[in-house]
């Protein structure tokens, strides 16, 4: 029977009530007394030298308080990146300065040049039009491969080239991998593009800063996934403000998907401007600005090859990728295509040999950062496309080829050739579940039925394994991380029994206020409603690293559990003292402390009160109060996995692809709230289908983003998507954290794109069109063109 409370219950989300009544509090809903408004003059060229900038007339416009240029920020540091990647030759990544406002050169469309602060936003905007800017346009490069050719325009003059790093993983294995290709029975190879996409959370970014000169305190309200990270990065590296003087609040955040990790130029700008002007300063992004200033995602060009023996067993694979990083390095820019991409690039298979090469390249495009899945979708896409191609070439059923190469259930923990150890899994079980739920056996009949209507039907598989739960600090430290990725939690039991849980993770749609309360309720045996989850404010939460990389349950949840256990241990001391029993004999069961073998017991609430009324306690051994904090650093990553199946129909007359059915059979380990997990599956799959069929950030050769609004950039709409079938009943709880949870937030975005593309290729190839390959997004014109060139 489904539970109605605690871990495993589909508790309704408590946060929904405020969202459904218009009482949510997003950053743009915050207004401070006396607030002024910032607007940015942004570059409209992708590469240019600022010859001169004259703000005289603009500064005299009504309402203008001040116009800031790079001169005002010359003492500020470079906006930082979080990871050092070392190249094959032992050199470290090239890292250019990333200024808050452009310093003489602009390197991408949308780069902020000047910031105007005025009494109203209209006045700031009007003034921006009066700034006289003389720009010498320079040649731009937008394609990663073109950017590393001889004679390509240099994005950063101070660097030796546009190559940020050239990373080989694992370099020592390369010779053995190459040797395996020499003697292989069959080699399948594929060149593909994982196109650039825009995260586009529905809430545009926003930042409001305030400075209190009396106690030299800054407060920044901002749309962030990780307020402590902003405080640390912006304080230490950009504005030189100590943590004690900067409070960062991320209130309700309207979606993020990786694009709200970074400590952005605009956040630093309003913080400094607020101090200089002595006024609160607010900036709200328009959607148009978001397209050219929010971090974008993906943008890989990859060649991948697979060596197989005569039985179809995988012997080795190798890849070469050009990863477009954009004009500057954002926080996860260099780790995303390397350590977040390489370790899981081997997927669910027991391929004994593997080598991953990635070249990170600067171009005159908007900087890239983590986007839902970050590196793992790219790795999964290339591998799953390749496996399908191999199956077609060898005439083996794609499900069977996968199955025979899967890591077997009894082989866990499984040491991969890509450094990591998969914790637990049963890839055969998720595939079986998928075949069952999608009625794979009945597919042939459905294909015939479509054919009778003149349509081409296809079924596409993808399996995926994610290296998630970021991250074991010791391991990532060895790999170049500049910070640890533990998480903190504090559990405060108040005298009247209500519990506050402070977590360093952040929720921007994931329902932490509900799910984390379920964890605590489960362990205390009390009503979830007595527990309140508090996040998103550095003044309240001791410390934290935020939410990304499917880490909140696996790392943040584990920290909460650890703090809860400490609270229980201390509460047990109070109970033992009052019940006059030894601590070992006192157990907490269903919210009651009971002395073993007796009928003496105390309710949780009585103990909570007693903790604050220390009238007769041995004060040397029992401190009053009931509040504990914990830091949890995972021992290892966790490895959720799944098998996806997509069924499409292609109209051969028009090239239009319709997704008829999408089934996701996932293994996320232990499930805290099945309803929320299913929602994460839906949303991830929708974003994956969006990338496969619709979305693309297109730059022309001059570096103009030609899909820079919702008019040109095709966001998935309700009518583009089917209802999904999602399942998470195959569960192999991870031994790597005490909850057994593996993380579910990124799954759909990882597994869906290859399933959709494989389905379309299946439809075409079985429909008489020999199309070996096609790149996303599968727009009707692209599909139609592929069919024409095949015929």
């Amino acid at each position, binding site marked *: 029977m489904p539970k109605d409370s605690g871990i495993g219950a589909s508790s309704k989300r408590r*946060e929904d009530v405020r969202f*459904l009544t218009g009482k949510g509090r997003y950053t743009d809903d915050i207004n401070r007394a006396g607030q002024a408004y910032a607007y940015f003059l942004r570059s409209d060229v992708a590469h240019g030298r600022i010859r001169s900038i004259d703000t005289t007339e603009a500064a005299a416009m009504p309402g203008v308080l001040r116009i800031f240029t790079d001169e005002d920020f010359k003492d500020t540091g470079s906006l930082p990146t979080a990871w050092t990647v070392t190249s094959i030759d032992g050199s470290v990544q090239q890292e250019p300065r990333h200024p808050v406002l452009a310093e003489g050169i602009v390197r991408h469309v949308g780069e902020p040049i000047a910031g105007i602060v005025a009494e109203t936003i209209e006045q700031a905007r009007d003034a921006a039009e009066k700034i006289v800017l003389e720009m010498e346009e320079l040649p731009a490069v937008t394609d990663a491969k073109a950017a590393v050719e001889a004679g390509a325009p240099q994005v950063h003059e101070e660097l030796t080239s546009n190559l940020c790093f050239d990373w080989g993983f694992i370099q020592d294995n390369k010779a053995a991998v190459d040797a395996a290709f020499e003697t292989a029975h069959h080699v399948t190879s594929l060149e593909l593009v994982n196109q650039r996409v825009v995260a586009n959370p*529905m809430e545009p970014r926003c930042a409001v800063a305030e400075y209190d000169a009396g106690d030299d305190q800054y407060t920044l309200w901002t749309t962030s996934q990780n307020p402590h990270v902003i405080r640390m990065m912006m304080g230490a590296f950009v504005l030189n403000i100590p943590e004690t003087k900067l409070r960062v609040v991320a209130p*309700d955040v*309207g979606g993020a998907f990786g694009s709200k990790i970074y400590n952005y130029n605009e956040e630093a700008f309003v913080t400094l401007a607020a101090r200089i002007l002595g006024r609160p300063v607010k900036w709200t992004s328009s*959607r148009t600005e978001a397209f050219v200033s929010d971090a974008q995602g993906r943008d890989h060009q990859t060649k991948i090859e697979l060596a197989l023996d005569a039985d179809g067993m995988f012997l080795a694979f190798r890849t070469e990728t050009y990863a477009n990083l954009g004009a500057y390095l954002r926080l996860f820019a260099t780790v995303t295509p390397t350590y977040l991409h390489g370790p899981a690039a081997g997927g669910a298979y027991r391929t004994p040999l593997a080598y991953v090469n990635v070249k990170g390249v600067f171009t005159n495009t908007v900087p890239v950062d983590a986007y839902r899945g970050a590196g793992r979708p790219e790795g999964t896409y290339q591998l799953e496309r390749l496996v399908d191609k191999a199956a077609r070439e060898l005439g083996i059923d794609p499900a069977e080829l996968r199955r025979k190469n899967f890591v077997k259930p009894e082989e866990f923990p499984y040491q991969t050739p890509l450094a990591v150890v998969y914790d637990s899994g049963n890839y055969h079980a998720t595939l079986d579940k998928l075949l069952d739920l999608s009625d794979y056996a009945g597919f042939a009949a459905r294909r015939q039925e479509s054919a009778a209507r003149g349509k081409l039907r296809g079924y596409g598989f993808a399996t995926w394994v994610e290296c998630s739960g970021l991250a074991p600090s010791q391991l990532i430290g060895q790999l170049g991380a500049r910070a640890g990725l533990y998480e903190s939690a504090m559990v405060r039991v108040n005298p009247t029994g209500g519990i506050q849980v402070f977590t360093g993770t952040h929720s921007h749609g994931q329902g932490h206020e509900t799910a984390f309360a379920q964890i605590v309720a489960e362990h205390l045996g009390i009503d979830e409603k007595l527990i309140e989850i508090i996040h998103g404010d550095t003044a309240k939460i001791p410390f934290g690293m935020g939410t990304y990389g499917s880490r909140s349950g696996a790392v943040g949840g584990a920290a909460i559990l650890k703090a809860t256990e400490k609270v229980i241990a201390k509460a047990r001391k109070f109970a033992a003292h009052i019940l006059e029993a030894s601590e070992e004999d006192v157990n907490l069961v269903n919210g009651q402390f009971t002395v073993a073998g007796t009928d003496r017991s105390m309710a949780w609430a009585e103990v909570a009160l007693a903790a604050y009324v220390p009238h007769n306690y041995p004060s040397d051994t029992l401190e009053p109060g009931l509040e504990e904090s914990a830091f949890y650093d995972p021992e290892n990553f966790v490895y959720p996995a799944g098998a996806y199946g997509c069924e499409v129909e292609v109209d051969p007359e028009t090239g239009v692809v319709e997704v008829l059915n999408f089934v996701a059979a996932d293994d996320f380990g232990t499930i805290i709230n099945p309803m929320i997990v*299913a929602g994460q599956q839906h949303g991830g799959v929708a974003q994956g289908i969006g990338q496969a069929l619709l979305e693309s950030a297109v730059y022309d050769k001059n570096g103009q983003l030609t899909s820079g*609004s919702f008019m040109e950039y095709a966001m998935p709409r*309700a009518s583009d998507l089917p209802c999904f079938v999602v399942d998470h009943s195959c569960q192999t709880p991870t031994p790597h954290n005490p909850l057994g949870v593996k993380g579910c937030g990124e799954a759909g975005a990882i597994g869906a794109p290859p399933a959709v593309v494989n389905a379309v290729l299946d439809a075409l190839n079985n429909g008489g069109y020999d199309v070996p390959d096609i790149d996303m997004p599968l727009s009707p014109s692209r599909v139609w063109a592929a069919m024409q060139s095949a015929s």
Partner: protein
Amino acid sequence: MVEISMNVNGKPVSGAVEGRTLLSAFLRDDLRLTGTHIGCDTSQCGACVVHVNGEAVKACTMFAAEADGAEVTTIEGMANADGTLGVVQQAFQDEHGLQCGFCTPGMVMSAAALLRDNPTPSEAEIREYLEGNICRCTGYHNIVKAIQTAAAKLTPVAAE
């Protein structure tokens, strides 16, 4: 500046606005009804949908002055008189039809308008109707379910 007055969520309000002030800005900035959200600047996302004289309208496409004298309902006016969630709102919670909540006010307002025009919409009709509302979080699956659930509650017989 133009003097305007209207009924918002049943209460008379008035203000002085510039001719270029959008209804969305008037609601958010002047009336501090921040439940109406702004997700784009090209009238594509639907986060700003409100009802003006009973019709679903994108508040970012209408000047505040054009709503002079109108009956306006925003998400803040959708709960029952006793403060509990209205049928459509409740269905969104029950079916997990929201995640970050940013598209939600517009979705609820659009859904309520749809169900008034078409009390028993098919799945395809719901998806078609939501053409102007973008959600990045839910994949729409549970939004569609929420609207079906609300339809069944509002029109129990017809839904059978």
